[in-house]
């Protein structure tokens, strides 16, 4: 029997599923090998049990958390798909601001006042904190990045289909910059989170002239102290550095070490 694969959305732009749909060259071969039972961007079908459940998006509301627990109980493997699911992504920046303040910032004072008295006004209001998938259920594998990397997706699916344990090395983005003989971002007079961020993306942003903002999260052994000192030495303000660290990683599970 073909393994059943499902995709579930939580708070996200669904860009990761779109990134997958963009790999037309492999998608058809892949669909030969699996049974795709839930995929909001493409088809609609339901199943009682899943072999691999891909979770896209961060978790905000209690009902989302309950739904996630239900998916976990029906899945053999849970894969956190993309930066929202893995480490909260940009929406988790709101974790650093009181909800009412945040609401006012976005929708204005009048909206904030209404939301406090009208419970049906905006259900998202119920959220307390933006969480990564791992904060609620056990995650078997992470496909990091904003969006996720299609090659890593393929590596993961191939491994699981052939009864293997997928392996994604925990190295810095710098490794991939060197493999691509990239000019260091710091040499270009800009600053970069590459030295402390998970690679695996082939340093795609730097290859294309941008900098790394650690969308794949911070490495478990990230030397944040040394990086902070490096950023300060480049004349970057404390506030700007903090804002940079918080851009993608605010709901990141703190490393155990």
């Amino acid at each position, binding site marked *: 029997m073909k393994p059943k694969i499902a995709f579930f959305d939580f708070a996200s732009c669904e860009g990761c599923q779109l990134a997958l749909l963009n790999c037309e060259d492999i998608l058809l071969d892949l669909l030969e090998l699996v049974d795709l039972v839930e995929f909001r961007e493409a088809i609609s079908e339901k199943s009682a049990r899943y072999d691999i459940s891909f979770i896209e998006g961060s978790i905000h509301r209690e009902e989302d958390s309950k739904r996630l627990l239900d998916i976990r109980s029906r899945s053999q493997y849970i894969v956190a798909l993309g930066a929202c699911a893995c480490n909260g992504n940009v929406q988790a920046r709101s974790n650093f601001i009181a909800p009412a303040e945040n609401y006012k910032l976005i929708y204005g004072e009048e909206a904030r006042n209404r939301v406090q008295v009208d419970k049906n006004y905006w259900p998202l209001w119920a959220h307390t904190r933006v969480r990564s998938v791992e904060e609620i259920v056990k995650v078997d594998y992470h496909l990091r990045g904003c969006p996720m990397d299609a090659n890593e997706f393929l590596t993961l699916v191939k491994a699981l289909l*052939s*009864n*293997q*344990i997928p392996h994604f090395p925990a190295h810095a983005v710098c490794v991939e910059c060197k493999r691509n003989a990239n000019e260091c971002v710091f040499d270009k007079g800009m600053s970069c989170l590459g030295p402390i961020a998970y690679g695996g993306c082939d340093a795609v942003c730097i290859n294309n002239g941008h900098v790394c903002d650690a969308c794949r999260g911070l490495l478990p052994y990230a030397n944040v102290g040394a990086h902070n000192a490096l950023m300060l030495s480049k004349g970057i303000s404390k506030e700007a550095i903090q804002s940079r660290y918080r851009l993608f990683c605010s709901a990141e599970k703190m490393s155990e070490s």
Partner: protein
Amino acid sequence: MKTLSDPVKSNPYIPMMAEIQSIEPLTKNEMLFRVRLPEPLNHRPGQFVMAGLPGIGECAISISSGPESGKTLEMVIRKVGNVTGVLHKLKKHDLIGIRGPFGSGFELNDFHLKNGNQETLIKDIVIIAGGLGLVPLRSLIIPIMEHKSDFGRVHLIIGSKTPREALFRQQIQQWKIHPDCSITELVDNTDFQDWDGDVGLVTEPIHKLNIIEKNTMVVLCGPPVMYKFVLMEIKMNFNIPDNHIFIDLERRMRCGLGKCGHCQINHVYCCKEGPVFRYSQLTDLSEALN
């Protein structure tokens, strides 16, 4: 001037494919694989092979069969990661990739009772194995037992965590009938299992060994934590020269050719100069027994 000699045409990374003759579960996580190679391995005791499957990966596996096993290769594979997990799912007649043999291994000559080029006679051979350490040492014990009259007294100390993890018990029984061969089997604890051996650590029987110190060879293999304590016990009780103590070390081997760098212990490559070292070689290697 280019200093190169002619590059070899052969590709050292392509494995030979061997047919699995039998797979015997030894414990919950360990299986004995007996495979038939296309050509004899011609290995020395203590050497290892890279075993695996193309497309999946390979890992360093100690050779467990004796040097006279011809085209038959025996190895014990413990399920610890991705590759070994896949290997454990293989069946009889499936193919498995083998590269090797690699490493230094033991020279049987060093253990002979009468050996032409050596001034000292080896009257006692002490072999101490902890856990999976018995697996590579079996490749040394087998030829000693098969030609027992060429060797002096043999003292085996074999330790396991619990009776469930004890390996090759039937074969050990057969070794016991050889003359001048004393075998102590121990477990750390019986864990409510039947056990006819001793209970304790491999360090405990060491002081009771009845050996002629200057005519003794000692061989150790076990988990990294074992070496320090066993060596301390040996040094406290006996005066055995460092070059008469052999230690079989584990490192992360990738290429088996002394190139990829993963198995390096200070300046030596474990896959090339090791995994068997004389203790006298290790005193200079600060990373060896850490």
